[in-house]
């Protein structure tokens, strides 16, 4: 399945990735190859098979509304690339409003 240049650009934008001119055809080729491979699965006859999102035949696995443990803020911020002591800090987001 051939992925178009426009599709690569669109997916890159959704993922907030800035691709270079050389990277676009590179990923176009890679994504096309992956999708072609996935496409082979479409050959399997599945007309009689209901869509499956879960292999465990269970429903209603629920928990009671009871407070559990939380993590220490210092510990969780320590594993983040950047923070201001109380919040995570992330680069500004382009192309989207609040």
């Amino acid at each position: 399945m051939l992925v178009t240049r426009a599709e690569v650009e669109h997916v890159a934008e959704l993922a907030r990735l800035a691709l270079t001119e050389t990277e676009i055809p590179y990923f176009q080729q890679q994504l096309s190859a992956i999708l072609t491979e996935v496409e082979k699965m479409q050959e399997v006859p599945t007309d009689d098979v209901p869509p499956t999102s879960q292999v465990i035949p269970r429903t209603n696995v629920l928990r009671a509304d009871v407070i559990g443990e939380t993590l220490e803020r210092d510990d969780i911020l320590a594993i983040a690339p950047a923070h201001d002591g109380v919040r995570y800090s992330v680069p500004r987001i382009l192309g989207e409003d609040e």
Partner: protein
Amino acid sequence: MLSFDDVVARYEPVIGLETHVELGTQTKMFCGCPTVFGAEPNTQVCPVCLGLPGSLPVTNKAAIEATVRIGLALNCSIASWCRFARKNYFYPDMPKNFQISQYDEPLCSDGYLDVEVDGELFRIGIERVHLEEDTGKSLHVGGATGRIHGATESLVDFNRAGIPLVEIVTKPVPGIGARAPEVAKAYVAELRDVIRTLGVSDVKMEQGSMRCDVNTSLNKLGETWGTRTETKNVNSLRSVERSVRSEMIRQGNILENGGHIIQETRHFHEDTGESTSGRSKETATDYRYFPEPDLVPLAPDATWVKELKAALPELPRVHRARLTAEWGLSALDMQSILNAGAVELIEQTVAQGASPEAARKWWLGELSRHANERGIELGDSGVTPSQVAQLQKLVDEGKLTDKLARQVLEGVLAGEGDPAEVMAARGIEVVSDTGALTVAVDEAIAANPDIAEKIRGGNQAAAGVLIGAVMKTTRGQADAKTVRELVLSRLSN
């Protein structure tokens, strides 16, 4: 430039509302983190709501129950089997890079809510009620305005991430013409009251536990529906009405000048009452929804749903109709109570022993005026229904006059305690001791012999001067009627 009236003369609006309600559960949707509003940033988080590797969500039963109850109260069908879905997007307000939501299998669907505007009934169709998890809160810094545009970085607090959020979507509402803004507002107000009655959320728009997106389109009379816009950031009942009105005017003017409406997200600004264009580029396919593999399906048991339905409380419309009859009010009286947000307050005051008339007088009179002056909700004035009932009891027992009661209420509003405490602290009480009053009356007569002579001569109107003098010596704490009777009896021949 077309005015609102011009627009509705030429175009027909179609509106739709999407309302998000944060449930008041103790814990989050898929983990046991607490949900306290206003807690220190990032102190109510765990591996699940932070999307840390290896963590798995488990559904909160209380959130399912609350959502089913909302669905039932809105006359919806409850799905016998449904799944959560992943909504994928790259935005730092969800650390997992996706939000667990529901897509094509909502928990509740196809209901309605009846809404009254000035005695006219509007049945608003409910498309769906589904459950999802709320996102974290981003604070944009570095820009001049604090909004994204111009910001250099975003600071994220995940306390809110994962709080159960119910989304209630109406069907498109056509055929309401110029009433569209009012109907939109009345719908959101009624929905808020229903949810408050169910006790599943505190539904505070100003705190964001109830948020509203408004869809609006216009079409020429008799033609097919036009392109709609979605206005976000509508965070008060007043704004719901204003945003529909301003969007109708904006679209009407574009169409009138031969332009086309662009399907877009717009952001409402509370300060200007106008909206600006957002630039969201995601469409439903971009979110790549798929069934959430980390959760098993939900299959609400029919017997359980039946039990929940049977246990629903009396809903606001029915409740108001009953109160209107019990309190002996007209529909218009009830409408003014409803508009003031005073139904529950009056009801609780009556439950504490006050008469409906007295309770209504205090809440719609002094207390409404006070709330309006301060720009706050009536229920946030700091006076409880119990205190109003206590105040009225003191009046009924003759311990306070209406005038003194208002002084006492000022003290209660100022946080000086219950009415009895304010009376003691401020030394306010009716001087009912006739002996003491008689002394004061005699002093007034002695000090004003001319006036006294006039009254003896039959000029009762002159008594006002003596009453005034007595009120002054008793610092306003005597009952003017009693004083008047005393003055006249002392000076009768």
